[in-house]
């Protein structure tokens, strides 16, 4: 098990991050922006971690919830709020998360009650694309493919973004940690391991899957809202981009899918690589990222923090022994 030490050092790290803005000149440094991006990614990665890592439902629609959150923020801010009132309005953040959660419920109910495994993954992908096309074709309401902008008047520094981002990242991580120690988390993990056995033990499988999916949607919506406050505009290309699903998956898998701190570690590392590649090799950036994705998957597919609770020591997991996040037993392909 991870032990208390890990959590103590995590708490110390959070404290250190909260004090970073006090360092002179820190707010204007590029690393400050990097950390903000890390926080956005942590919230998204935890959202995917909850749905896929813990509950075993591989979702390819987190970018859609991210986009819904961002659009909600900008649309409400431009339509209903005055010049200064919208900026980092907590109600606006909450509304964005809740709207995304509602979308998740609406999408999740038909999909989760009928589909599992790869079919569920493909279905979420389809719904995400439909939402994207809906936003592109939304006419004046959604601004079409150009999107909608909100006033960037209140922007002074990145400081509020940083602090809100840190708060949300910590809250998302703590939420996942607390959930997983509760009976809800137990039910979710039981569903991941064996949905039939979970149902036989009295777990309402559909309800818990929906709950996880909705909380995942809520977190992704919050991340989208936070990011919208940074770019001050939303567009289908920027927000409904599959990268917002794939990068969190990468971070989760790299750090350790289905662990509390794995996605955090993954977010720090992968964002560092993406940011560095973007600075030094702007044109070739996806080549580096793509190559790195492949290398990570080939050489450490179980992630850095794969906690093997069932085994005594922390020996590296054998490939076939890794916990399958997919759920049905016929997915297990153990080849000689």
């Amino acid at each position: 098990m991870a032990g208390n030490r890990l959590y103590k050092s995590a708490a110390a790290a959070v404290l250190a991050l909260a004090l970073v803005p006090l360092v002179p000149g820190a707010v204007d440094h590029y690393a400050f922006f990097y950390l903000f991006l890390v926080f956005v990614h942590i919230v998204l990665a935890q959202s995917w971690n909850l749905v896929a890592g813990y509950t075993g439902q591989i979702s390819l629609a987190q970018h859609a919830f991210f986009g819904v959150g961002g659009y909600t923020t900008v649309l409400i801010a431009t339509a209903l709020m005055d010049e200064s009132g919208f900026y980092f309005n907590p109600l606006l953040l909450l509304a964005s998360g809740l709207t995304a959660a509602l979308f998740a419920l609406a999408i999740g109910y038909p999909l989760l009650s009928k589909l599992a495994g790869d079919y569920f993954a493909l279905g979420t992908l389809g719904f995400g694309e439909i939402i994207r096309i809906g936003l592109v074709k939304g006419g004046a309401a959604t601004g079409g493919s150009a999107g909608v902008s909100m006033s960037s008047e209140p922007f002074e520094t990145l400081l509020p973004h940083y602090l809100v981002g840190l708060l949300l990242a910590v809250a998302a991580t703590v939420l996942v940690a607390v959930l997983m120690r509760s009976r809800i988390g137990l039910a979710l993990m039981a569903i991941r391991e064996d949905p039939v056995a979970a149902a036989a033990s009295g777990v309402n499988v559909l309800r818990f899957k929906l709950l996880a999916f909705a909380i995942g949607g809520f977190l992704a919506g919050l991340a989208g809202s936070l990011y919208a406050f940074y770019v001050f505009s939303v567009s289908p290309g920027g927000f409904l981009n599959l990268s917002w699903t794939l990068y969190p998956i990468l971070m989760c898998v790299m750090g350790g899918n289905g662990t509390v701190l794995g996605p955090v570690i993954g977010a720090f590392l992968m964002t560092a690589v993406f940011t560095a590649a973007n600075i030094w090799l702007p044109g070739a950036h996806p080549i580096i990222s793509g190559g790195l994705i492949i290398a990570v998957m080939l050489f450490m597919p179980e992630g850095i923090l794969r906690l093997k609770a069932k085994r005594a020591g922390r020996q590296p997991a054998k490939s076939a022994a890794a916990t399958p996040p997919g759920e049905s037993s016929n997915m297990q392909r153990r080849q000689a």
Partner: protein
Amino acid sequence: MTAFDSATLGVLGELLVNGVLFGSMYGVAAIGLSLIFGTMGIIFLAQGAMIVLGGYAAYWAFRLLGLDPYLTLVVLMPVSLLVGAALYQMLFRRAAALSDRNTTLLIAVGLSFMLESAMSLMWTPDPRSITTTYTSSGFEIAGMRLSVTRTAGFLVAIVATFVVTLFLRRTMIGKAVRAVSEDMVASTLVGISPHRVNMVAFAVGIALAGVAGCTLAATYTIDPYFGFLLSLKALIALALGGLGNVGGALAGGILLGVIESGSSYFLPGWGDAMGYAAFLLVLLFRPQGLFVRAMKKV
């Protein structure tokens, strides 16, 4: 029948035929995906990027060597078979043995990113198309004008489907591919080497991407970032036809082509959305595919 009616019918007929012809290209891509998914369970999202790569091969063969794209097809097939085998050995051999699906999905995504970016860097993001002497020519059948390249693409797709079906039904290794798709453990028990079968299935899948790329470049314009959309379309075609069903994948592609061409006429701009909607409906209500008679668990 009034003149107006026959004109409307003509438009509908042309929409239908164009949808069928273009959809056959989705079908070829979907057959490749189906082989790769059936044996290894990989959702190979890089299929579209491989198709575009095949398209660029045809484009450069035409531009630099003056080779006709349909002639290139003959050369490209063995090359892409080799590329597919190499890709399997380098990237998927180890990961295909894992029960964790995220790994292979992410490797495919990484490959797709690299290919897109590399193609864009080497050949610029400008759209390209092959203009041969016959590109804009067509012929008339029953009052409908058919383009030569689209019809040729359709014929290539039919032949490719036929060849793959024969391969799966008649050859030993093809039968092994089907056996592994049915039940990996049982086929290993009767002495089938999964790695060999996986490699062959992967190679054939990539060869089909090459075929689709050649016909695509001969018919339409390609650009480095077109691939992802193609992957999605191929996935939809696959789901419409039923996973692990070669004829069904082609039929699914054709159906998707018809849906898109029809809805782009009646609801301009919503063509893609209609495709996804059909995809979701089929997933929800007939996940075994539209063209499978018996319920078959994948």
